[in-house]
């Protein structure tokens, strides 16, 4: 099940004095089993791209296709469709219990109450919230990290073929961020995963592919490893490279000859230490 955007343009407030071009001529294809990281500065069009891919916004030009078939309207309601987790999704928890909240999506997709409950339990398990313990609780009694996971479960319960997340770790503490990162990367077993964020450091080591957006255009689309070897691309996208990469760029500018760039701190340390002691 391939999800493709072809020649997509989008302008907010088109035809008014406040028209703002958000995306220009965007071509991108997503595949199942892949974690794609979409990075860009504020206002680069990241969130718009996500909404168009999920069928929530209709492009002004170009097309969105799922397995070659043109898409019209929200893709969350079909199974398997495209599930989208918005920024601070816990603000949207509303039911009297976590179980009912998570079962709401599959019920809306037309599943029987029994089947929806089964899906809700599966989804809660997938985000590490024990359905027995958390199912009956009020969503408002959860901690920040638990509420975020419950909200993600609400989307996973709809068995999406694609899971799209907008800034999924924003505002969480380190342990909350780690558990959300684990959930997101594990979701690639059953779905194509697209993560939109401005925090390059957070997901870079977990993504198969990275897309850099700048002023509504894709300026890079390739394997994570390729981007790591070309960290100057971050700067072109108006972003700061992650500190570990920046350290290597600075070292190279200062004349330290590195054979290649790396992301893993241990690997970087040995590359730098070798280059540092090497010529002496």
């Amino acid at each position: 099940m391939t999800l493709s955007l072809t020649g997509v343009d989008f302008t907010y407030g088109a035809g008014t004095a406040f028209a703002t071009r958000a995306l220009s001529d965007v071509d991108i294809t997503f595949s199942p089993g892949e974690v794609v990281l979409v990075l860009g500065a504020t206002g680069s069009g990241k969130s718009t791209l996500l909404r168009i891919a999920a069928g929530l916004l209709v492009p002004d030009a170009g097309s969105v296709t799922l397995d070659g078939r043109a898409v019209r309207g929200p893709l969350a309601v079909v199974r398997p469709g495209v599930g989208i987790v918005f920024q601070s999704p816990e603000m949207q928890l509303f039911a009297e219990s976590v179980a009912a909240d998570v079962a709401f999506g599959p019920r809306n997709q037309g599943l029987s109450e029994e089947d929806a409950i089964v899906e809700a339990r599966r989804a809660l398990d997938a985000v590490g919230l024990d359905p027995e313990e958390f199912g009956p609780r009020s969503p408002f009694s959860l901690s920040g990290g638990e509420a975020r996971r419950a909200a993600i479960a609400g989307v996973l319960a709809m068995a999406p073929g694609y899971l799209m997340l907008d800034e999924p770790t924003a505002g969480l503490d380190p342990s909350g961020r780690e558990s959300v990162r684990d959930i997101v990367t594990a979701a690639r077993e059953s779905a194509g995963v697209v993560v939109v964020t401005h925090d390059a450091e957070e997901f870079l080591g977990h993504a198969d592919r990275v897309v850099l957006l700048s002023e509504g255009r894709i300026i890079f689309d390739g394997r994570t490893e390729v981007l790591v070897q070309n960290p100057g691309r971050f700067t072109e996208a108006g972003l700061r490279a992650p500190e570990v990469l920046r350290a290597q760029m600075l070292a190279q500018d200062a004349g330290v000859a590195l054979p290649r760039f790396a992301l893993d701190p241990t690997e970087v340390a040995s590359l730098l230490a070798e280059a540092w002691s090497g010529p002496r």
Partner: protein
Amino acid sequence: MIEFIDVTFEYQSSGGSVPALRGVSTTLSPGELVTVLGPNGSGKSTLARLANGLLHPSGGRVIVENIDTGDAEHIWDIRSRVGLVFQNPDNQIVATTVVEDVAFGPENLGIDPPLMRRRVARALESVGLDGLEEREPHTLSGGQKQRLAIAGTLALDPAYLVLDEPTAMLDLQGRSDVLDVLATLRDRGTGIMHITHHLADAAAADRVLVLVAGSIVYDGVPERLLGDEDMLARCGLTVPPIGRLAAELRASGVPVPPDALTAESVVAGL
């Protein structure tokens, strides 16, 4: 000085009272940059809201330059001494141009126009937004918007600035620009309390405060905290990749200081 003296705070909910702070004592001095770290729900934001009398302690006292925040008669003196900046800049911007937004606070206090204009100009210069006076705030980047929110608070000429996760919604560049502004303000004598989830932000602080479950578990210089892995683990803090790189380099004999948490400080060791 802001003094927190054996402060407890309990939120009232339908299930009874929930303790957010349990006997916290600490201070914030003029010209001091204090970074506050701790997991979600550890009481960090409560501490921020107690600092200017937005909340009042359930037990203990909060004193701002010898005035108790419980002293209703002087609450506006306290609020003008202690400025608060929150996470989402979009919720803190009120006007249609940058300069009007910064002028909103002093205008409302009835400060006379020539003084107000000087303060607004100085506030914009402090956060590096001078030259953007006539821009519409919604056209600014996230980092610029947050610096605008800080300028709006600075225009009230506070002696202390308390910021609750001001960089949470910013990209790395925006974050680094805000951190630079905080360091500049500290150097000019403002007392700053910076609440954050980013351990790396602590490296620039004069003092670090770590809260866990409503109690202070660390109050001291950043170097000692950053060099103590057991302490970091106990505080639920994770070392960012750049810190792990620094530690590995130190282990292989490269002279990198323990508080090196930026690319620049690590490479300086090479």
